[in-house]
């Protein structure tokens, strides 16, 4: 990290890079205009009134923020009045303990702007105006987009002037040179196509605030500029790294230091590597430089995922895992292109060439460049189990086989899936009452269709569903199969009675279930088969007869809020030994200590459960590791092979957590939740919770925090 970036880092982590919105006065007579014209006019005035931050250390600029006075970007939805109403009523308040309301993610097609400039987009707008001749509302919308391009260009010219002023004030000759170049470059980009790596990064930096979610596949679309400038000795690797670092610091600076999210790496997620359209693996020397540059920064945002392919060299996975273990801020995760591309092609209906363009973003969502993610937000899928056992008990007792039982469960599952589709459609209707102005030029289809991305203009979107509590469902079904049908240990009546009494009077049965139940993650044939059956049901339900007219990709993450806890609090006891009110699980890697057979068993179970790749939406697999495994170099080498094999078997995602002191202390207090926490030193191994207190304390004393 050079001295310039060091100074910027200090300012960023101190919160000094925060850009306050400049409040703007609007003409009252704007109210005489049509709503669209008024919005467009005010957005442009607002943008031109902003003051992009230019420090004497700056090589890049453009960060602005929207206040609520205009409809801002489509990610934050500031100023989107209908969205605000829905937020007040539904956000953090799931409907019928079934579905919650959330934001929607988007990825701008920044390459298009870098390559064509905003002038190129203006040409597209002109063409679209010709195509929509006579359609007043279309022309009105397109005019706002043309004006928006000019406003962004105008702001760049304004910033160019400001850079000149700061350049004259600075006494540092190197900084002065940088600022003079910034001033000159802003006359060119983002208005015109970028011609160098520096201009490409500046164009991206400047346009990002208008769709500030993910920067996308930067190692792919910045690569031609990087390669050309490195080969022609126009830029050094060190200089290129410093521009990338300044870009990353802007992403961090978008969060206010007082916000919880300032220290949370759940936003501004992007990807490296992955398949290229020619079928080759895309991890290149820029990818490597990007990670190295990122890890030099002691910041939390952005986070990055490696897109692994079967062609990814082991050395690349080792490099990324090594970066991960060295990163105290835990910014790196891993996703697998093999099942995901299958999901994107088989379910989302994309071609291979389209599918390879996806990027991870947010916590672990995905979208294509110039696209958004629609669909339903966290859904309580455990409610379908609850309905089966509490509302269909008369049918259940007549079921003579697991197959008959499962058919009843499947009806309840499908019924809930259709219900969430209905609620989700309601949410989408509310969102579509707002007309977003500022993000459309970066999204696919809006200009061609002459409609806002919030009002049906967008053509590039993926439909996702987030059933939370999938492992509770698998476990509940597997336990029912094992105890009621395979072993006949209890009758269905007894199991229903146990659940209705919240296990009171059935403590022994519950203990036996927890002790020897076939829980997901142990790689036994019962839970593996049930897991596959559940995924097949999701696939069977999946259809295009919904309001998005696309099949869904499913996932299991919950974002920032503990929906798994809230869903659980309102859900009655379930056959997996869950008491009424206990939280349900999110992700697919955690089964609350019920996975007892070690990491390969867990990873095998996950990799095998979804051969149809329907669970390739925002899926999360958390893996909790003994800290020694990651610290010890010999063990680390085996971990590289472990995760490479897991991906080659079909696992979609993993992110690592090491055993921290806090985890171990918590394991002492609630050992039942940490049953799979294995401690091993030189040939001796035991489960942590089986060790006596003295030994546990000794190990706690030796374990360090890793984040």
């Amino acid at each position, binding site marked *: 990290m050079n001295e310039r970036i060091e100074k910027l880092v200090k300012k960023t982590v101190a919160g000094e890079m925060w850009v306050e919105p400049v409040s703007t006065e609007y003409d009252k007579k704007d109210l005489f205009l049509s709503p669209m014209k008024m919005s467009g006019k005010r957005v442009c005035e607002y943008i031109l009134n902003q003051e992009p931050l230019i420090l004497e250390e700056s090589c890049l600029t453009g960060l602005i923020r929207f206040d609520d006075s205009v409809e801002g970007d489509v990610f934050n939805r500031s100023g989107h009045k209908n969205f605000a109403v829905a937020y007040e009523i539904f956000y953090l308040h799931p409907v019928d303990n079934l579905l919650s309301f959330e934001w929607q993610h988007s990825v701008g097609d920044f390459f298009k702007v870098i390559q064509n400039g905003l002038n190129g987009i203006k040409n597209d707008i002109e063409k679209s105006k010709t195509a929509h001749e006579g359609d007043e509302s279309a022309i009105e919308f397109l005019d706002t987009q043309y004006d928006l391009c000019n406003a962004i260009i105008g702001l760049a010219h304004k910033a160019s002037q400001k850079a000149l002023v700061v350049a004259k004030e600075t006494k540092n000759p190197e900084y002065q040179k940088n600022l003079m170049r910034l001033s000159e470059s802003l006359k060119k980009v983002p208005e015109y196509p970028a011609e160098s790596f520096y201009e490409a990064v500046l164009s991206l930096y400047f346009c990002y605030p208008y769709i500030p979610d993910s920067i996308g596949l930067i190692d792919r679309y910045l690569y031609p500029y990087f390669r050309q400038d490195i080969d022609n000795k126009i830029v050094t690797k060190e200089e290129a790294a410093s521009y990338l670092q300044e870009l990353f610091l802007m992403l961090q600076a978008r969060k206010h230091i007082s916000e919880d999210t300032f220290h949370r790496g759940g936003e501004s997620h992007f990807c490296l590597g992955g398949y290229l359209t020619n079928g080759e693996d895309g991890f290149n020397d820029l990818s490597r430089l990007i990670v190295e540059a990122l890890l030099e920064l002691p910041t939390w945002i952005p986070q990055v995922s490696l897109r692994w392919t079967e062609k990814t060299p082991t050395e690349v996975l080792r490099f990324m895992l090594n970066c991960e273990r060295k990163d105290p801020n835990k910014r790196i995760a891993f996703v697998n292109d093999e099942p995901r591309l299958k999901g994107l092609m088989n379910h989302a209906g994309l071609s291979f060439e389209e599918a390879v363009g996806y990027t991870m973003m947010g916590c672990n969502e995905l979208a294509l460049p110039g696209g958004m993610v629609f669909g339903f937000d966290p859904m309580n899928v455990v409610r379908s189990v609850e309905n089966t056992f509490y509302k269909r008990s008369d049918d259940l007792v007549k079921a003579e086989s697991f197959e008959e039982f499962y058919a009843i469960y499947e009806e309840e599952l499908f019924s809930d899936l259709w219900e969430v589709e209905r609620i989700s459609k309601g949410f989408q209707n509310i969102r579509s009452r707002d007309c977003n102005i500022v993000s459309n030029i970066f999204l696919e289809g809006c200009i061609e269709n002459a409609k806002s991305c919030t009002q049906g203009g967008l053509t590039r979107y993926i439909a996702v569903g987030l059933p939370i509590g999938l492992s509770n469902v698998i476990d509940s079904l597997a336990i029912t199969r094992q105890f009621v049908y395979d072993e006949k240990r209890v009758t269905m009546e007894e199991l229903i009675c146990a659940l209705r009494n919240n296990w009171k009077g059935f403590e*022994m049965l519950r*203990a*036996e279930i927890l*002790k*020897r139940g076939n829980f997901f993650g142990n*790689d036994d044939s019962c839970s593996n088969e049930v897991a596959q059956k559940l995924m097949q049901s999701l696939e069977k339900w999946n259809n295009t007869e919904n309001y998005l007219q696309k099949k869904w990709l499913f996932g299991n993450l919950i974002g920032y809020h503990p929906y798994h806890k809230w869903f659980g609090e309102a859900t009655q006891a379930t056959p997996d030994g869950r008491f009424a009110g206990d939280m349900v699980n999110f992700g697919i890697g955690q089964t609350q200590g019920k996975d007892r*057979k*070690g*990491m*390969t*068993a867990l990873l*095998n179970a996950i990799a095998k459960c979804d051969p149809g790749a329907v669970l390739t939406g925002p899926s999360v697999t958390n893996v909790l590791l003994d800290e020694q*495994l990651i610290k010890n170099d*010999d*063990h680390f080498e*085996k971990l590289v*092979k*472990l995760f*490479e*094999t897991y991906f*080659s*078997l079909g696992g979609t995602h993993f992110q690592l957590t090491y055993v921290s002191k806090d985890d171990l202390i918590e394991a002492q207090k609630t050992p039942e939740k940490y049953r799979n926490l294995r401690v*091993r*030193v*030189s*040939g*001796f*191994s*035991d489960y942590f919770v*089986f*060790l*006596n207190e003295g*030994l546990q304390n000794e190990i706690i004393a030796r374990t360090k925090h890793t984040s």
Partner: protein
Amino acid sequence: MKLLPEQNTLLEEKTKATIFDIQRNSFVDGPGIRTTVFFKGCNVRCAWCHNPESQNFKKEILFYKNKCTECGRCKELSVDNENFFCLNEAKQICGRKYTIQEVLNEIMKDKAYYQSSGGGVTFSGGECMLQIDFLEEILKKCKENNVHTAIDTAGNVPWESFEKIIPYTDLFLYDIKCFTETLHIKGTGVSNKLILENLKKLSDKSKGDIIIRIPVVSGFNDSAEEIMHIANFLKNIHYRDIDLLPYHKMGAHKYEALGIECTDYYIPEKENIKKYKHLLSL
């Protein structure tokens, strides 16, 4: 043909083994990612043994008194009942009979991980070579399925047992507790004569597919003199590597759970381990 009762027993020994744990995802019992099968029963009584539950050939109960709530359930149910379990995990049954197919099924679950990491299966214990017929059969099955095999042994078994399994064993993890015979008898209850003889023969036959494992136990073999003796002996042995295994006290709670007295030894100084590595040219 009807089998005589003793033939039945023999057949069972060949097709079933008493095993107390099958641990998948082991990173420490040989190269790569491995599954370790722990056989129950041993004929060496190392006073520092960290797996005392591995010594007895029969199924036994570990009783963690501090976890017992005196619910009395264990008095109603026989521990021979396969479904026995203690709600509080105060009583844990250690060991059960496994068929070859059961063990093989468990081993084969992680074959993909062995292949990618250069791992495989390790048969450990206890002393796995004391259930030699079963061991020979399961090794054959593993080789038929292209799984790398390792044997973790103390070597105190007839040479004929080695001859049976050498064709199907890719790697031996061979323990040397000490060189001086009187010290060996004192620390383990048995002479090391057969152990060292077997190692020599194995070395001649297996051409170095051996990793020597030496526990370093303060109060037993933690001396330069003893390590030098071992180093000298090893000059005529073909081996791939030597692992020094510093003593630790992490098996102590199991002694208490088994109601066996635990001999107190000391953890060796790190400096000593460094010194011994030097003496052994590591």
